[in-house]
């Protein structure tokens, strides 16, 4: 009690009336999260304004709810401004006093955010008390220029074989994850975050997951999963749920980018997942229409492309002079009926450095992740791929594309020559090898060893139906009996001659032990013959 009294006395003693006048305006009209404000003729774009509920109330009434409500100026007009309300819009009333703050929208950033769940304004929503982050950073800022950047050359392993082998992602890259609802887009992002646990602490990226317009139950489940896997130790969640005002859903990705940039500028690596930008675009469309900006294609405003390009351009690999940090972006876009030629998907495809396209058909066939290899691409990631992965995965993409063609052709013909059948079996085997369930990311050296085995014919003696189970056994075998080789691959990031020899010997031993035996139980109850 005494300490509280002392603190209050200190505050009273330190108080001095603010000198000078402040600029104020009056709410002319408010509705749908937008306030029309008379006055504030010197307000600037993206400035925060403060709706003051205490101005025309008695002190006793004002103390009941003295919390100010903020707004963000988005339209400058002839006789006033229009601002989006960042909070409970029902508290805004006509004639309410609005003060300028002179501050552009900023959020607190810092190390203490790690492990926390915050809203787009940086306020904690996980019930663990204040975040303790004190450094304020503008939420909107210009991306780094050409001189400050370095080329993407360090891999960011997702732990998903199909991606690390065929669509590699580099640190500082922007790789779009696109597909219909329920095709596993979020799973890829979450597995990628979980997989960073296998990275050494010094090079492990700080992960920021931005949930936009999602059900709170989904976010809660996700946080629980990350916590149970020990991934919250290096993860920050920014959430603007479906129940949040459109303004917060629009701001959430920018908040994520701002937090990521903080770590990037410390010379560290950061990974930010925007889940998903389709919902952000919808929120921005809603705001723009309410702000009476002219609608364009699909009623989106004219600057919707700029909205996403300025956000994604903030992902970067910085030069050594700038500390060498990186910010990798994994934006997610949800398509409707697989239509990648819609407005927002084409925009974001053209902005990013590649896309991972997930197909509902493949998902329904049981392929996990349901990646359509034909139209998935990574434009800069191959230069960041490790030598080991490059060596083992060279031709997979081409072979799989040929397999898909043959597979389609096979539907029309039952008589296949031996060569074609061999290719189809090889394709099936490879598809099976690349199949990987949710929440099971693999360390990169294991991925490399498994793909090495598949591409060098070590699994040819097994039927395509058996390969899935064989692969699981192979991983156990490698962990048990080839630990040294795996460590060598992990440390050198390549498969050197000596490692290759040992690996081949171990694989020969594995094949000899398992081929022709019936100890490999395959799904469906078959056993190896």
């Amino acid at each position: 009690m005494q300490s509280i009294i002392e603190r209050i006395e200190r505050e009273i003693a330190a108080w001095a009336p603010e000198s000078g006048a402040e600029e104020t305006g009056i709410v002319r009209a408010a509705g749908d999260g937008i306030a029309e404000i008379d006055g504030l003729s010197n307000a600037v774009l993206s400035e925060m304004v403060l709706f003051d509920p205490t101005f025309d109330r008695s002190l006793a009434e004002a103390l009941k709810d003295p919390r100010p409500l903020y707004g963000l100026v988005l339209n400058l007009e002839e006789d006033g401004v229009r601002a989006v309300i960042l909070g409970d819009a029902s508290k805004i009333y006509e004639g309410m006093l609005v003060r300028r703050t002179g501050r552009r929208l900023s959020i607190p950033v810092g190390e203490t955010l790690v492990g926390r769940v915050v809203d787009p304004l940086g306020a904690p929503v996980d019930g663990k008390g204040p975040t303790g982050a004190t450094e304020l950073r503008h939420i909107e800022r210009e991306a780094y220029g050409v001189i400050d950047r370095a080329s993407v050359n360090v891999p960011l392993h997702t732990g998903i074989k199909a991606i690390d082998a065929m669509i590699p992602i580099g640190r500082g890259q922007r790789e779009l994850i696109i597909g219909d609802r329920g095709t596993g887009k979020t799973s890829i992002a979450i597995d990628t975050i979980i997989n960073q646990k296998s990275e050494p602490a010094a090079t492990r990226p700080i992960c920021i997951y931005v949930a936009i317009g999602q059900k709170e139950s989904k976010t809660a489940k996700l946080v629980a999963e990350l916590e149970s896997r020990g991934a919250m130790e290096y993860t920050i969640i920014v959430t603007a749920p479906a129940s949040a005002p459109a303004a917060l859903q629009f701001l959430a990705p920018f908040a994520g980018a701002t937090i990521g940039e903080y770590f990037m500028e410390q010379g560290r690596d950061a990974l930010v997942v925007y889940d998903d930008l389709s919902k952000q675009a919808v929120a921005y469309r809603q705001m723009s229409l309410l702000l009476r900006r002219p609608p364009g294609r699909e009623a989106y405003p004219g600057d919707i492309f700029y909205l996403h390009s300025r956000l994604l351009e903030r992902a970067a690999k910085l030069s050594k002079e700038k500390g060498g940090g990186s910010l990798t972006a994994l934006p997610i876009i949800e398509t409707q009926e697989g239509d990648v030629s819609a407005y927002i998907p084409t925009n974001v495809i053209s902005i990013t450095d590649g896309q991972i396209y997930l197909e509902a058909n493949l998902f329904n066939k049981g392929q996990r992740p349901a990646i359509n290899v034909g139209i998935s691409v990574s434009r800069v990631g191959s230069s960041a791929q490790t030598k080991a992965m490059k060596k083992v995965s060279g031709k997979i993409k081409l072979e799989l594309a040929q397999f898909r063609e043959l597979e389609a052709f096979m539907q029309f013909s039952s008589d296949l020559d031996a060569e074609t059948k061999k290719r189809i079996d090889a394709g099936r085997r490879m598809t099976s090898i690349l199949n990987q369930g949710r929440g099971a990311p693999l360390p990169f050296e294991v991925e490399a060893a498994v793909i090495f085995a598949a591409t060098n014919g070590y699994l040819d003696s097994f039927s395509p139906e058996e390969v899935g189970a064989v692969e699981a056994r192979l991983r156990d075998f490698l962990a048990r009996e080839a630990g040294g080789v795996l460590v060598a691959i992990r440390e050198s990031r390549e498969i050197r001659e000596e490692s290759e020899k040992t690996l081949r010997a171990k694989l020969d031993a594995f094949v000899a032990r398992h081929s022709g035996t019936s100890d490999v139980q395959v799904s469906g109850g078959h056993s190896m013959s």
Partner: protein
Amino acid sequence: MIDDYTRLLEATAEIEDKAASDAAVTKLIMHLKSAGRVKMLPQIARELRKVAARRHALRPLVEVASRKEEEAALRAASSEGIVARHASVNSSLVRGWRARQGGRLVDRSAKRALLAIYQQVTRA
């Protein structure tokens, strides 16, 4: 179109000669009738009401917590560039005064100070 007519009437209100001002309004109404735009009149009136309210808000306004503070408050407000002849009493200010003109606000009330302290203490 409505904005144009509203601006016209706003300018007419500035004319000091009342007869001339009335004549201008009559002429405008006649013009609207002849052009078949009488239905615009309620909208024009609504816009004018908004303009009047905005102008009202732009007037200098000084509030004091008690009548005995009026003289000092008017002097202090004047030194801040807000000149008013009288001050109105607003007991919710607790002590001190506040003055507004246009988009400018000077708040030297105890209410503001107490709220600021309350917010600082509860935020810490």
